[in-house]
């Protein structure tokens, strides 16, 4: 589904990302871990054509992301709060995304109804703009918005950060369900090794922009990761 070719990103002589080759097949649930500055967000941003790589290119569904925009209709992402429109209410935001993705209100409502317990009564019907919600609640909105319109690729940068424990557990369940769907490719980055090993079938470790580990998740993965980061 996603193929990265000779991708590098250099800022003033400083290479922050250098991936020779990375293939993410359709239906994969892909976890990305790494310390701060390892290049996780840079990779996701170049995947979304939000930053221009210095060399190389990324293909999404066989489409070069920097040449055509056809991949956008099957890809959704939540990177940070810049993916939210602060002056909308949660409902308005969901409907807006829905309209962009060709979903009418009924479709969106049907989807949202599945996540009522995830929202915990703090999102819908709140009479508040998104900018006035707490960080955690903003995140909930952003994450659920990525599910609107049957995307085939879902990219979530640090989805667990800022969430309360209950919501983290519910989010894990949601991601696992997505991962089980062979039509959907999920890409998740996280600092929480436990969470990411739980929801992802494959885990890639980035260190200073390079892939240093590429593991299929098993019983030992968590231990191996902990050892890697404990050096």
């Amino acid at each position: 589904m996603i193929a990265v070719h000779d991708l590098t990103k250099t800022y003033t002589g400083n290479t922050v990302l250098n991936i020779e080759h990375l293939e993410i097949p359709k239906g994969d649930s892909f976890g990305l871990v790494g310390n701060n500055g390892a290049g996780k967000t840079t990779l996701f941003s170049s995947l979304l054509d939000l930053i221009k790589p210095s060399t190389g290119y990324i293909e999404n569904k066989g489409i070069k992301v920097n040449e055509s925009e056809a991949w956008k209709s099957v890809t959704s992402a939540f990177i940070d709060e810049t993916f939210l429109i602060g002056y909308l209410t949660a409902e308005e935001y969901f409907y807006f995304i829905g309209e962009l993705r060709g979903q009418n209100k009924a479709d969106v409502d049907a989807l949202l109804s599945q996540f009522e317990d995830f929202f915990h009564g703090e999102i819908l019907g709140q009479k508040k703009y998104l900018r006035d919600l707490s960080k955690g609640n903003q995140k909930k909105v952003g994450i659920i918005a990525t599910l609107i319109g049957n995307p085939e690729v879902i990219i979530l940068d640090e989805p667990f950060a800022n969430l309360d424990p209950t919501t983290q557990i519910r989010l894990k369940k949601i991601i696992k369900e997505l991962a089980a769907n062979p039509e959907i490719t999920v890409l998740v980055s996280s600092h929480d090794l436990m969470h990411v090993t739980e929801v992802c079938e494959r885990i890639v470790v980035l260190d200073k922009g390079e892939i240093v580990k590429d593991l299929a998740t098993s019983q030992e993965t968590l231990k191996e990761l902990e050892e890697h980061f404990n050096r």
Partner: protein
Amino acid sequence: MFKHFVTLQWKSFWRSASLTSGIFMKIFMGFWALYLMLVMAGGSFLVFSYVKKDLCLDPLQVINQFLIYWVVFDLIFRYALQQMPVINIKPLLILPFDKKKIVSFAFAKTIFSFFNIIHAFFFIPFSILLIVKDGHSAMSVMLWHLGLIGLIFFNNFLNIILNKKDNLIFFIGGILAVLGGLQYYGYFDITTYTTPFFQSLYDTPFTVLIVFVVLLIMVVFSFRSFARNLYLDAGLGSKSKNITTENLDWLDRFGKTAIFLKNDIKLIKRNKRPRTTILVSVMFLFYGLLFFTGGIETYEGPVWRIFAGIIVSGGFLLTFGQFVPSWDSAYYPLMMSQNIKYKEYLSSKWWLMVVGTIISAILASGYLYFGWEVYLAVLVGAIYNIGVNSHVVLWAGAYVKSPIDLTSAKNAFGDKQSFNIKTMLLSLPKMALPMILYAIGHYAYSPNAGYALVTIAGIAGFAFKDAVFNKIEKIYRTEKHKTLWAYKQKK
């Protein structure tokens, strides 16, 4: 302690992401400021000699009559243009800085504001002339002058409070409007009361003391009110009020564009900063009065008519349009990763500007009072705005890379007004072309030929809309990554 603030300011200026455009702008503004200073200084000589030689009156008494207007207009200009002292307050709050120090620094900054200094360029030469040429007592003139300085700074601090208290501005604005109205219709002449006051600044030495006592009270009051509001849940915090979800379904007939149109309307309705564009366009509507009433001599040339026409009908277009796409800077990454055609996105903005222009043109029908020729200029201006300027502002927008904080109004220290001198100046180039076109037609053949030329240019621009949009779209696409990067940088 002040040293810290000064170095912080220094660094925030030189290290800001938009430095290059900032510097260019500053130089440009510098020239503008220089020009204003010269005008002020020159004005004081002109006024003095005009009153003395041509009217054979005492310049001091004449100016005392008009000083109340000076003070009032100073306040209005300040409210509209003067930026509040911006220093990044939040991180300083938990550091061992005395809150009083933070406020003192912010206040000290306003004292050196251009809005205070500019007055000196008029009144210092004027005072000197009074003493040297008119033989007024030096001591008295000095006291008079001091009193004026006190009043100017009174305005400075009053403006700081006004910027934070919306109720107060309605109160003061209301009083000014009522007094202005009474004055205009001749029921009540405020100057009969204020002239003796200004005169007494000269005559009785103690009046100056009153001014300074009032000034002091104002300083203490604004200082207290500022210091009290240095809490995250007070002046620095955000007020959230209950709001309702809106549908705006009736816009759906516009097809794909409607998605963005609905959003843009919410953008304008719900954010302080874009809301001011509406206010400004209303102000622009009245701008034509300066031209058509013959209020200002230089504006009486025929070419200025078309200039007025463009401004009157294009207030919204110029003020809103110049910040496309910066209005969406806060969530630009979202827009860029969604399945969005630039064309639909841009055409929504275009429609807004067109509708805004048409509404302005309709509201401007009041100018029919000055004759149909005047209104014709507005209509021709509207056509040119729709046909050409709407494209020009979108085009220029591709290169606009300064992020806009939609909610800056929340911040006690943030800049409240989006309408500033900078935005006004940048819209001037859009005026030059139609004026030139009109001039060609007017002087080569007749005024109507001038209007026709401008109209043709407007219609031609409209006819080539698709081609121009394709071109603009391409520019937006090539600028995309740079824009995304720039929007990520905080001010």
